[in-house]
């Protein structure tokens, strides 16, 4: 399979509407986390009447514990560029940006090389493949702000501003970069486009489950024998991923939980290991698919401490614009600090749940709306650990350093 062959074939043989139809048939859903149908997004931008449209690739892989996009960008940046160009052709855009983390210097370097090569070979830039279609791509470096993974914040950042999200609607598909209709998809989504064009949407839709089509790349890490990237069909069970592909837990220790979806996701306990991995099941379990980070934890991890870790993350990554996220995440974090240092009270648990509900329901963007997930999912499956910290001032996993009455008397 030659580089850019899908793009050249598309330009030669397909009309833009046919590209979108194949995308819709493939059932591909955005791989960045929210899982919005890609075909639908593209057709909205295609239908928009506007002299200028953009294609933006979200390569701001911000979830700690996720490195799927980094591997694609470093090993096969052309596939992403090809996917973007096909998207641009489908919607009638002539300019695109890749917003990539400054923390990935090698990916940045290889992207720059790949863009220069493609421009030299007439596969990007003016009159691609001798056709009337032109598409220019440029890089923009992120600056270490997790919230810029949120699409409206990312667009603000490309415009050179603080990465503060704005309310949607209007969605970027109607009013995005510089208020023009904009496709914004993540790296993995664009990387899936060339094979779909080569083999057809129906081929792609045959892989996976009824509502979650195709394959998904996960970054398996943490307390598991085989760490690394895996690409699996949707619908595979967590047990197959962790115990078979991952080779189980090292050191003969017990599996405790698997964290999916990063700071926006949740912790799934052993009793749900046989759940299939798809968008619906993970949401039902109180987690999310997210971008594909999967961190395995064994009995040496304290789930309250893990919840505190993620809340600290969300608190310091909150942009500070809306009050519930700015103050709510700080209050929740401070409450978790009290629980893990042994000064939490039974009343704290009730207030904790109320605050989580508030932040989830009233925050402006996805960061705040999902920030309570790690706390809520651990409260749901590991409530006893919270209670042990509060009632007997002890940490079952012996991670937290509690000022406990028991310690003093011993």
């Amino acid at each position, binding site marked *: 399979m030659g580089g850019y062959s899908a793009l050249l074939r598309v330009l030669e043989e397909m009309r833009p509407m046919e590209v979108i139809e194949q995308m819709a048939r493939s059932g591909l859903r955005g791989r960045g986390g929210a899982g919005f149908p890609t075909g639908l997004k593209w057709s909205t931008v295609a239908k928009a009447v506007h002299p200028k449209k953009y294609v933006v690739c979200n390569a701001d*892989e911000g979830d700690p*514990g996720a490195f799927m996009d980094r591997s694609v960008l470093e090993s096969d940046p052309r596939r992403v560029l090809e996917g973007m160009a096909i998207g641009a052709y489908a919607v009638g855009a002539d300019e695109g940006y890749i917003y990539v983390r400054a923390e990935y210097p090698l990916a940045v370097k290889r992207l720059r090389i790949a863009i220069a090569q493609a421009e030299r070979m007439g596969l990007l830039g003016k009159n691609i493949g001798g056709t009337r279609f032109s598409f220019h791509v440029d890089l923009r470096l992120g600056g270490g702000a*997790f919230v810029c993974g949120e699409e409206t914040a990312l667009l603000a950042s490309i415009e050179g501003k603080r990465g503060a999200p704005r309310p949607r609607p209007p969605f970027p598909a109607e009013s995005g970069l510089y208020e023009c209709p904009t496709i914004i998809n993540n790296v993995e989504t664009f990387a899936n486009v060339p094979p779909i064009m080569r083999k057809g949407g129906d081929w792609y839709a045959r892989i996976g489950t009824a509502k979650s089509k195709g394959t998904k790349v996960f970054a398996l890490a943490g307390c598991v024998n085989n760490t690394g990237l895996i690409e699996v069909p949707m619908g595979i069970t967590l047990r197959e991923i962790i115990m078979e592909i991952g080779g189980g837990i090292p050191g003969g220790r017990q599996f405790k939980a698997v964290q999916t979806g990063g700071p926006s996701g949740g912790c799934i306990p052993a009793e749900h290991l046989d759940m299939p991995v798809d968008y619906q099941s993970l949401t039902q379990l109180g987690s999310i698919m997210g971008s594909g980070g999967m961190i395995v934890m064994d009995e040496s991890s304290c789930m309250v401490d893990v919840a505190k870790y993620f809340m600290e993350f969300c608190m310091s990554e909150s942009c500070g614009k809306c009050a519930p996220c700015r103050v709510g995440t700080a209050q929740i974090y401070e409450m978790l600090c009290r629980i893990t240092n042994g000064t939490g009270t039974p009343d704290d648990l009730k207030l904790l749940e109320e605050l989580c509900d508030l932040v989830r329901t009233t925050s402006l963007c996805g960061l705040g709306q999902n920030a309570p997930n790690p706390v809520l999912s651990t409260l749901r499956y590991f409530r006893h650990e919270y209670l042990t910290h509060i009632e007997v001032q002890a940490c079952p996993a012996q991670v937290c350093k509690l000022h406990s009455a028991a310690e003093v008397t011993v």
Partner: protein
Amino acid sequence: MKIDFEMIAPPSNDKRWRVVQMTMRQHGNQPNALIETLHSVQESFGYLDKESLRYVAAVLRVPQSRVYGVATFYHFFTLQPQGLHICLLCTGTACYIKGAPNLVADVEKLTGVALGKTTPDGQVSLMTARCLGSCGLAPAGVFDGTVVGNLSAPTVHARVEEWLSHDA
């Protein structure tokens, strides 16, 4: 009076300003080049001081308060000069559950400075990263640009101690 923004002089005769000027010109000296320009300043000078922020604001015609707002929003930018050596520890989820907090506490104790700070002699800066994407190597860190995986307290100790003793 019309100001010719191309003619605004950089804060000094330092040749490194040419790189910054080139970045701005590549983007047509437009306000949307702010973040790219700040990256360029930091790459050239190691950090962003007020003089450089004022200069960039003037050339790109961005209000000073917005420049400062952007420079302090993104954690990648620093307004303080960095140490000669940089010890950056990853505190991503995989590294966290595999003992990164202990490594951080240990190296803070060794250097006597807190995370994000530089030793008084300017030798070592301690930093953390949200995730290096090297989760398979957890816990991981970057020592002067080199990624090192499967860190333990003694390995971190050895590297940082070497830097600290160099000024003696």
